[in-house]
């Protein structure tokens, strides 16, 4: 083997105090931190997930600490699709979730306002519910040209390909219950 002698005595700690380990052509003394060094996911629980970027469907492992903090996201080696590999976007999944640019509170922009305001979630939800009802009441059409249509063209919904199957099902069921027909997502193919 063409490598130089690997001095691990320092790492073992035994010879560390000896002068000889510290003097020489290439003394190789490990610090306390180095001796203790190990990946932050040691002992953390891997949670199996799927990458949310593209449709290849790479399986991921999200390592979570005992206190529920996300530590690391990497490919799941068991997957027959990605075999543990990820593309740059998949490799950045951690940064998508843990990111101080992310908006994690309600932002409300009143009519004619030039800024967002922070509002409680409960307030926003109730306000939206009232507006849905108002609009539905104002725009619901039972018949058109003698045919039953039972719909509202006053409300539209857009999006679906970035969230789950069950969520699409719920959204579709909810929108159909309201009578909304302008339901679309990215999947015009």
């Amino acid at each position, binding site marked *: 083997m063409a490598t130089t002698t690997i001095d691990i005595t320092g790492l073992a700690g035994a010879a560390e105090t000896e002068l000889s380990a510290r003097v020489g*052509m290439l003394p190789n*003394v490990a610090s306390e931190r180095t001796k203790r060094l190990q990946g932050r996911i040691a002992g953390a629980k891997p949670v199996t997930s799927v990458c949310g970027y593209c449709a290849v469907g790479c399986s991921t492992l999200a390592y979570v600490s005992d206190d529920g903090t996300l530590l690391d996201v990497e490919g799941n080696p068991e997957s027959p699709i990605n075999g543990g590999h990820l593309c740059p976007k998949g490799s950045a999944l951690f940064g998508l979730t843990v990111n101080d640019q992310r908006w994690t509170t309600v932002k409300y922009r009143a009519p004619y306002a030039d800024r967002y305001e922070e509002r409680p979630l409960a307030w926003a939800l109730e306000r939206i519910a009232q507006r849905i009802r108002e609009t539905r009441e104002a725009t619901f059409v039972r018949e058109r040209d003698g045919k039953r249509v039972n719909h509202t063209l006053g409300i539209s919904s857009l999006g679906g390909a970035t969230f789950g199957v069950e969520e699409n099902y719920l959204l579709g069921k909810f929108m159909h219950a309201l009578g909304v027909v302008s339901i679309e997502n990215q999947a015009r193919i």
Partner: protein
Amino acid sequence: MPDLSECRERDDVPTYYERPLLKAPHWEWNVVTYLFLGGIMGGLGLIQLIAHPERPQERRLKRTVRITSFILAAGNPAILITHLGRPERFLNMLRIVKIKSPMSLGVWGLVLYSGAAGANVVRELAIDGVLPRWMRLLAPGFLAPLQALLGAFTAGYTGVLLSATANPFWGSGKRHIPAASVCSGLASASALASLLSTFEGNHAVVHKLERLEMVAGAAELLILNDFKRAAGAYGAPFFKGKRGERLLTYTVVAGTLAPLALNLIGQAVKLPKPIDAVRTTLASALTLVGGYVLRESLIEAGKESARDPRAAFRQPR
């Protein structure tokens, strides 16, 4: 068809979008100063040894040089510390002794030099009666040659520190830069000693110091001249362009040739004392400036050399 020549990428030696291969040194004035003072310390180490202990003027010189060298040795780490990314970790330098690392050896050299110089200062002060006389014993006789030896190392290591790197220009001067560093260090040290002696009124030693300075300066010039020849294209950042002109002006002409001429005048003609003092002061100051500019030019040329991918692709052996 429009002219597409500027779109052509293939050249004789391909580079990666003309981007540097190497990282440039993160070294500024503080490292220049550190190296410059290191050279002076080295030179002073020699002078404190060779000055004759029996002749009163040279005794006095010895004393001045020892005290000065100790002050420099004690202060230089402070300058190095200002350069460190994590200054509070300066002492980590003393964690190990790595023979393959000029930086490690250099710091140890500096530390030991400080010790030897310190002891020699104690001896001086004890002889003078400033300190109890018994304290002379703290500095046995062999410490003087030891300080000189360490001094030679300190002056030389500042050159090896540069030449034993991956920097193509520095590497091309693997012999010249260390040798020139020693010469420049001694020249600067002699100049400093002349200056101090003039101020002290210890005029008797000034001519000897000036002779030493001339020898060192001349040697430095010869080495630099040979360096230019040997370095070839690698030497361009140092010898060519603005930096080359600066080197020529400050280090060669003003920093070496001018003091040489002034010193020759001093040796040949007996000038009135005040005028001679001005001459010495001028010659010494010029030498010191030349020495500083030499170190600064070495560092700056190293930065430029690091930015040249072609030099870095074929590093000098």
